[in-house]
């Protein structure tokens, strides 16, 4: 697998709190994508970070990438109940297809 076993997590937090999730990858990549998957839906891209970027922000989302340790993190500040979802990091092992990590299940309670 492209991803370490430690990627499987479940986090329960209260609305308003911040949350950070991590993943590490084994093979070289130029892009790490973070997807959010809500119950009964397919994954949706929420943020993408390239190998020449150490940090990327989009609204309440912040992604980091450390190519030396081959790891990436996603932070969500001021979580809302609507942030409840499974979050996946993904890279491209294949020329076209994505390789997904196991994901982090985030449950945000009001």
């Amino acid at each position, binding site marked *: 697998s492209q991803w370490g076993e430690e990627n499987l997590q479940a986090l329960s937090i209260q609305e308003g709190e911040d949350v950070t999730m991590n993943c590490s990858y084994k093979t070289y990549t130029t892009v790490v994508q973070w997807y959010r998957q809500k119950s009964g839906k397919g994954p949706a*891209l929420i943020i993408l970070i390239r190998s020449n970027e150490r940090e990327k922000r989009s609204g309440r989302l912040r992604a980091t990438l450390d190519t030396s340790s081959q790891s990436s993190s996603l932070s969500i500040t001021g979580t809302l109940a609507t942030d409840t979802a499974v979050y996946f990091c993904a890279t491209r092992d294949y020329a*076209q297809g994505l*390789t*997904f990590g*196991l994901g982090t299940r985030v449950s945000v309670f009001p």
Partner: protein
Amino acid sequence: GPKVLQIPSHQIIDMGQMVTLNCDPVSNHLYFYWYKQILGQQMEFLVNFYNGKVMEKSKLFKDQFSVERPDGSYFTLKIQPTALEDSAVYFCASSNRDKYAEQFFGPGTRLTVL
């Protein structure tokens, strides 16, 4: 945003039967993908398709699998014959460019093989 549709949402069949999963990709997209997700496991790439041809496939894309998109209609994944280990949720995705373009995913088809 752009939507990918998948039909049906759930399919139950007996082992050995043939099944066709249908995907209606975003209308101007040219690249199409199938992924497989077994319950509790990570989503895994199966195949991508462009210009009427399979461009790349993973080792999960067994000989029993085939894909096509006849005359710009549904992009389909056919499994013939099915096996118990084919039970999973299958996600279709499409993109308008290659490699680094965002892939838009459908809601998945849950396939149960009995």
